[in-house]
Every structure is written in C-alpha cells, then in structure tokens.
C-alpha cells in the first residue's frame, strides 16, 4: 500500500457543531489509495508543532481527488488546525495503517464520539449494506445521524441521558439489534471501554468483530514505537502500522 507525502490544498474547513470540524483537502494520491479505517498524519501548517496529528479518513471523493476528515478541537494543535482557511496548503502523510475488512455482506457499525468519523468512510464504501448503532451523551452529540442516513439502511441511536433514541449505552442496545439483524461483522470505533463491551457481546453471539484503536503517535510509520500495544497472544504490535484496526480477539480478552 503506497503512502504519499503531499502538500494538499484545503478546500473546506467548516465547523459542523461546536468544536467539531469537517476538513476537506485536495490529495488525489491519498484519495486513490485510501481504505476505510486508515488514517493520515496532518502537519499543522503554522510550523509551531513538532508532531503531526493522526486523523482518521472520514470520506474520499475519487472524482474531485479530495479526502475529508472530521476532528474535534482537543488541544493546541487541533485548535490551530481549526483556524486554517480554505486555500491554505497542509502537508498530509498517508494513507497509513490497515483498515476494516471489506468482505462483509452485512456489517453492523457501532460508534461513539469521534470514532464515528472513520466509520463514515466504511459505511460509504459498503454501498448501503451496513447498519449503524451510534451512542452519545445527549442528542447534540448525535449530529452524525444525518451524515449516515444516506449511506446505511438503519440507524440506531442511544443517548446516556435519554434525550434521543434509546436511553443508555450502545452496549445495552446491541444484543437485541444483533439478535434480529443477520449481521456477519461488527465494526466498532469509539472509546476503548465501549469497544471492549461491544466486542464481548459480538463474541458471545459468534459474530466477528473489528475494533479501531487510538493511541498517541509519533511517526505514524511504525518506527518510533510510541503506540506499541500488547496483543492477546503475547506479541507487541504498533497501532499505527499493524492497526489501527484489529480483530477484537487480538487486542481484548473476550472471555
């Protein structure tokens, strides 16, 4: 899988909801190579940041040669990124890592928080074969529903406070959805505790599950070992290079 290191023009950098941005850049090489679940390393343009920022690929458009990312401002780097105007050139390294299995016939996506960003690309690539279960603290956090609706068959929502969809967590809604759905793959991206819970339920029902891990990274190329993890078979793996997508049983104890 060839990686590119390109100067990409920012086409759009728009706030979707408070603190969450949609960034679209022109990077035809990356658009061509990208697979759902992969990420890029963005260089914050103002030169004040030593490290790049890893961001999952949320969408690509092969006609326009653009790639899009959805990110939340969590620190100084993403705050600086949020100020970037259309027309600015941003250096992008990618696509990086390994993505989701594309062979599923009927996948169920389960996402929470910014984990819903890379799943969006997967939903799109699945061409209407997928359903999604999304969870948030409240209704405002589920602005994702309108992004997913055109791409999937069914959208299931949970909120912690019950302000929208079923009250509770995705893990509470999952058993019933799985029981009636005929899914052949569960793909989860979100907080690690959520993914662990989701993976256990999928495992119990005998459905394979992939999860996408998040870890602080340096190089993004498998060289610096900042993002090393233990796998269940006692090996050391790198989230950036061997992941970020893993089969759940590789990284979580599902018993």
């Amino acid at each position: 899988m060839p990686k590119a290191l390109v100067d990409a023009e920012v086409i759009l950098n728009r706030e979707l909801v408070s603190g969450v941005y949609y960034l679209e850049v022109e990077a035809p090489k990356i658009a061509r190579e990208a697979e759902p679940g992969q990420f890029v390393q963005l260089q914050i343009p103002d030169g004040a940041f030593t490290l790049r920022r890893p961001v999952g690929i949320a969408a690509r458009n092969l006609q326009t040669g653009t790639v899009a990312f959805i990110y939340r401002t969590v620190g100084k780097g993403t705050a600086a990124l949020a100020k970037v105007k259309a027309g600015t050139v941003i250096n992008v390294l990618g696509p990086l890592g390994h993505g989701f299995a594309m062979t599923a016939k009927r996948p169920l996506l389960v996402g929470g928080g910014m984990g819903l960003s890379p799943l969006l690309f997967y939903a799109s690539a699945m061409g209407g074969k997928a359903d999604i279960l999304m969870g948030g603290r409240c209704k405002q956090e589920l602005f994702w529903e309108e992004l997913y609706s055109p791409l999937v068959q069914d959208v299931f929502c949970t909120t912690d406070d019950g302000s929208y969809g079923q009250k509770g967590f995705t893990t509470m809604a999952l058993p019933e959805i799985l029981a009636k759905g005929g899914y052949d793959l569960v793909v989860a991206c979100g907080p690690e505790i959520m993914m662990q819970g989701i993976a256990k339920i999928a495992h119990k029902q005998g459905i394979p599950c992939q999860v996408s891990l998040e870890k602080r990274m340096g190089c993004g190329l498998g060289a610096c070992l900042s993002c090393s993890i233990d796998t269940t078979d006692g090996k050391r793996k790198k989230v950036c290079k061997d992941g970020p997508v893993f089969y759940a049983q590789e990284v979580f104890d599902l018993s």
Partner: protein
Amino acid sequence: MQDKRLFTSIAGIPMNTPVLTASGTFGFGEEFAEFVDLSRLGGVMVKGTTLKPRRGNEGIRITETPGGMLNCIGLENPGVEVFLQETLPRLAKYNMNVIVNISGSTAEEYGVLAEMLDVPEVAAIELNVSCPNVKEGGIVFGTDPKAAAAVVKEAKAHTKKPVILKLSPNVTDIVTMAKAVEAAGADMISLINTLLGMEINIRTKKPTLGNITGGLSGPCVKPVALRMVYQVAKAVKVPLIGMGGISSAEDAIEFLLAGASAVAVGTANFSDPAVTMKICDGINDYLAQQHIESVRDIIGAAL
C-alpha cells in the same frame, strides 16, 4: 555521484553525505524508504538493541512540548538475535550504512553485543550509555566517566567495527566525559542524547508520561546540543556526530561549523519524513553558493 561535495569518510566509513539519522527516530530505516533514498544518507543509526527483548515502558510514551517533544519509549526492541536473523538481512537491499545502537545493563553486555554485531552488514556500533528512560545501566554509564570508559574498552575489545560512544547531556561537564571515552579508545563520539524532562497534566494532576520523566528532543534542544558539540570539538580529536534538534540544512551546517564531522537528524523525521533529503540538498546548495568543494572544508570552521 549526485553529491560530490557531500561525500565524506569518517573513521574509515565512506558516507555519501554527512547526514545520518538518529537512533530511535527512524526505526530501521525501511519504514522511511518510500520518502528517503536511504543510500544517500551517511548512515542509519537503528533503533536501540539489547541482548534480550524489551517491551519498553507502560503508559503514555510521547508528548509534545513547546518546540519539541518528550519520549519515554524505554528501549522497546525484539533483542539482538531477532535483529541479526530477521531485520539485518532485510536491510541489505537498501545499500546503506547500518550503525547499530546498543544498550547493556553491564559493561560485559556491551562486549557481548559488540561481538555479536561484528558482521559484514554492520558499518559501526554506537554505544548508548545515555538512555534516560531505562532504570538499569543506561544513564549510569553515561554520567560517570570511568563507567563510560569501561564500556568503550569492553566494546573495543570485542569488535573490529568502529565504535561510537553516544554522550548524555545530563551531566555537569560533558567535556570530561568526552575526554574519558576518547582516552578509552572510542573511534567517534555522537552527541547529544535527549535532555531529561517532564510534563504534568493539570487535569489529572499527574505526570503525563508513564515513566514520569522522559527525554526532551526537537528544535528546543538545538542550542544546548550545539554548545556541547562546540565544547567537545575543542577538547577531543576523534570525529563527532552532532545531533540535537536539527531540522533544517541551516541547523546541520551550524553543527558542522561547530566541529561535527557529520550530523544526525532525529525528531525532525516525525515532522517531515523526507527532511533528511532536504537537509542534504540544502547543505549542497550552501557549499555551491560559497564555492566550497567539499563539506569537509567547513568542519570546525567556527572553532
């Protein structure tokens, strides 16, 4: 040859350019092969290798700081045997100088490692006596001139390869350290390793890094590194490999002028995986503009 002006030779090692990559920041080189012509580098100082596999430190291992970063990887590596059997054969196709960075918990271990690595595919051995992120060995050898000298002697006794000693900046007087390792027979000295530092997360009220402290690197350490290279260059005769925050050709030229025979690029590889090629080009342009035939002619010009 594309870089006639940049060609050099240090301790008998021919180098296409005086630009190397620093251990721990460039993997085994192969990770960067899509962005860098590895044969154009003076050498790749590969990820720190130990006798037994090491899993490194728990918890958060990297955090960005103003002008740089802190890391506490803790020498995670699969061990020298895996390196020799699996990694080294894979690197042959890149036609690059492989410099193996080694760490031991006793002086004898450095000797054992140096002997095991005395193979044709290895160009030189760099002794890491200054890793701030491991409890045993490491920093102890790096802060005591006698202990550092003992490590050099042990390594020299067990290999015919050029031996490079990597100095820690976390000492009162780096010149004393440099003189001690030169007297012990080091063929080259590389400097500096990272500066010991830390960060506290004000929300959790706990240190950010899993190992509490970490090594500071990046542009913020460059003035310290340059000063130390300058001081050491005045005091010793062995060639120096200067490193610490180099992220541009201008930075690299400063180190050469300060007396380094070559430079190594570290953290900047994270900011820009292709930065070493830009640095080679930039040094070449500088020499051309100044009508200087060889990079060797500017080494130590500021001394």
